[in-house]
């Protein structure tokens, strides 16, 4: 880089053209009497730290120990660099660079500070009894939120950078003596292979590393809850934190993990089991109820009890459309209502949703566009699809409903069975980080059944799920690895 301060500064100015927030402060270090300059980006740094902990000590404090740094400062995290590229990335990531006349090194002082929001309740994954803390946009803070739950030296963090331009920081967190190292290798190699400009969001990252991008089902858990992330880490899974994104990726996932919620473990086990069974029921209802309606009234009326059949037929005679069109009409209206609900501001959204739903439902029946039963079917489908705790799984079901309806319209109940069989075949062939997605059902793992359809008391649940193939299968006791790193 050279020794002359003025040439170094010239070079910096050249590199950062059209950067009005670049600040260069000239000063003389009190301890040695040499000239120096501080270079930083005003927008990414904490000004108070610079003034109180860097400028003040530099200007006022006496002689220093020559072996360390040739200046005084209160900042703890100081790195040295000699390359221009290091300097550039340090400045851009919010560090302050201290250049000293006659010294070939540049000193990078950690002064990061940018606009942050306060910790809030998670928006999508609300919970009744869980913590009211959601992840934030700052990766280091998210790590802090997780670490607070697990003060364990085995909680390891690997840092990676993804993106040529964005240089997004990504951290893999895992319990070194629990998580399977083979899975970790797979995850690392997939992350390393990503070749993009930048990763804006965790959802984007998922697309680059998931096993089957042509599946409607989510293959990784995306969560905004630190507590559920920790619970997954303890089960032997790994978390990927992406800087600037408030959702954390957890891998590997299985189909049933999307039906588990953090509340399951804090409510009484019987109630939790009941609610979990309810979710599986809701999954089936949301998937096949409209399809079953179509199949029943266009092919298999024999299965409907006579009294119900008479009332269905009575309300159907007023409807001029075939059952599929009738169902599509209502389902698409519902999907539109749901999508528009996201865009509307919260207080208005609810009103519009309820009023729109009631008015459209009521008047569509009166106008003879749809039948009464169809409105009931659509409404219960909508309710059922909201019960599933994972938003990604919920949307997958919302989408799959439509092909099921079409196939039911063509082949009746046989069609629904065909659809379900294709679905099951797809589910068992899916993988997440190379581990079977259908586990613990296919391949069947008896010990994992304790936390699948029901949740048995926690005291009886001594083993970690086999589906993550953890190094250490028993929970609890002091079976942590002795010593430090492996």
């Amino acid at each position, binding site marked *: 880089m050279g020794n002359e301060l003025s040439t170094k500064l010239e070079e910096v100015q050249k590199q950062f053209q059209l950067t009005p927030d670049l600040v260069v402060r000239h000063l003389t270090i009190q301890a040695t009497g040499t000239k120096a300059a501080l270079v930083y980006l005003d927008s990414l740094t904490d000004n108070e730290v610079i003034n109180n902990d860097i400028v003040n000590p530099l200007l006022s404090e006496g002689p220093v120990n020559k072996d360390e740094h040739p200046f005084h400062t209160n900042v703890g995290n100081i790195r040295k660099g000699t390359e221009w590229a290091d300097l550039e990335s340090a400045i851009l990531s919010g560090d302050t660079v201290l250049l000293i006349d006659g010294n070939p090194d540049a000193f990078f002082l950690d002064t990061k500070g940018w606009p942050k929001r306060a910790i809030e309740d998670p928006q999508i994954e609300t919970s009744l009894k869980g913590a009211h803390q959601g992840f934030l946009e700052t990766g280091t803070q998210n790590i802090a939120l997780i670490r607070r739950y697990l003060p364990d030296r085995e909680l390891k963090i690997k840092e990676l950078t993804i993106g040529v331009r964005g240089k997004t920081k990504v951290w893999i967190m895992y319990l070194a003596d629990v998580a399977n190292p083979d899975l970790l290798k797979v995850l690392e190699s997939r992350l390393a292979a990503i070749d993009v400009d930048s990763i804006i969001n965790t959802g984007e990252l998922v697309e680059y590393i998931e096993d089957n991008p042509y599946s409607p089902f989510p293959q990784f858990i995306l969560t905004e809850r630190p507590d559920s992330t920790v619970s997954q880490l303890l089960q032997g899974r790994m978390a990927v934190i992406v800087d600037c994104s408030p959702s954390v990726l957890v891998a590997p996932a299985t189909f049933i993990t999307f039906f588990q919620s953090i509340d399951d473990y804090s409510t009484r086990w019987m109630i939790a089991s009941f609610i979990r069974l309810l979710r599986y029921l809701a999954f089936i209802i949301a998937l096949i109820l409209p399809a079953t309606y179509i199949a029943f*009234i*266009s*092919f298999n*009326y*024999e299965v409907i009890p*006579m*009294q119900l*059949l*008479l009332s*269905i*037929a*009575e309300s*159907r*005679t*007023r*409807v001029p459309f*075939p*059952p599929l069109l009738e169902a599509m009409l209502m389902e698409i209206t519902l999907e539109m209502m749901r999508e528009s609900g996201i865009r509307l501001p919260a207080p208005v959204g609810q009103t519009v949703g309820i009023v729109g739903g009631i008015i459209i439902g009521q008047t569509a029946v009166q106008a003879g566009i749809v039948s009464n039963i169809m409105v009931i079917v659509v409404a219960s489908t909508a309710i059922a699809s909201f019960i599933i705790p994972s938003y990604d799984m919920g949307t997958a079901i919302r989408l799959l409903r439509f092909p099921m309806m079409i*196939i039911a*319209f*063509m082949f*009746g109940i046989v069609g629904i069975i065909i659809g379900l069989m294709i679905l099951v075949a797809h589910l068992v062939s899916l993988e997440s980080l190379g581990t079977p997605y259908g586990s613990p059902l296919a391949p069947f793992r008896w010990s994992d059944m304790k936390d699948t359809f029901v949740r048995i008391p926690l005291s009886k649940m001594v083993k970690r799920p086999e589906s993550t193939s953890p190094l250490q299968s028993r929970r609890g006791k002091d079976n942590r690895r002795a010593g430090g790193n492996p």
Partner: protein
Amino acid sequence: MKRTLCCTVLVLMLFLTGCTDRLSVENVTFILLVGIDVDEEDHVVYSLSSPVFSKEAKKKEEELEVRAMTMRNARENFDRSVVASTLGGKVQVILLGKRIFEHKDWFQLMDVFYRDNKDTVLPTVVLVDGKVSDLINFAPKDKPRLSTYLTELLRTSHKRNITVNTTIQELHRQMYDKGITPSISEVRKDKNLLVMGTALLKEDGRYALMLDPLANKLFSTLREHRSGEFPITLTMPSHNEDSFYKLNKLSITATDISTKTKVKYEDNKFRYDIKVNMRVTLSERLYPINLDKNAKKIEKEIGEELEAQYKLLFNKIQTAKIDPIGLGLYARAKEYKQWKKVQDNWGEALSKAEVNVKVKIRIMSVGSIN
């Protein structure tokens, strides 16, 4: 790439096969009642009744009657007249006129119900004492649709064991099993619809006799699938009936019935020993008696009275040379060699058999008052 292509082709092939047998619910005329009868000129007449949903229609259902060669042929005639295509998948009741039972082989007319897999084997078979057309055109103002009304009526009267409930599936078995003869519900339409009891048929399908509700209850206690309530009112001969109101009556409800049937072949005939254990609650008593002191006596009296009734029932059955209870099934199971000899003439053999019924009564409750 190959896989994607393969999948695409498969999906496209789904669309190739037609949607040909799709028929939406509103385009179907559901036949709910089917009637088969023989008219005065000895022609077989088919009739049907199906609900109408159109708002413009004033009547709730449409009825049609045709002379036809077969049931399927009759459907064609219906299709020429009714609003939508007729479909037999929801038939509730099959009404058979009494004149049908004058000739054997009538059962062959029902072939289509068993053969066509779009039809159902669950409708109840009913014998109509009178003309089927009178019943099927009956539209009472104070009752729901005839099909609904009739179905409910048969279901509830079976629950109280006034009549049996024989589906056509069950009828098929009763017709072809050599160890049992058919029994079906019998109704009559005078001013109102009335469930008369149970019609018992001969092995070849001809009409044999009718059981009134009381006889049907006793009959039902001996059958393999016992269900519902058994309220029985008895006349106690040990008490005088000089009162104007004939107060020697007692009503019981049998709650817990168990039977044990033993069969033996001795002296060139079958001998049946049937033990009936009943736990009853007393629901009505018109003559004065101290129930606490005389419980044992009453139990015995009821038992004897019931035994007499059973004897009457078996007399009727044996004279008619039929076996609606299925005693032949016991003979086949226990005395196969002897059964084999007489199986084609089982009614005859049973009429010669000796049947003893022993009834044991235990009163569980005498009600709220003494």
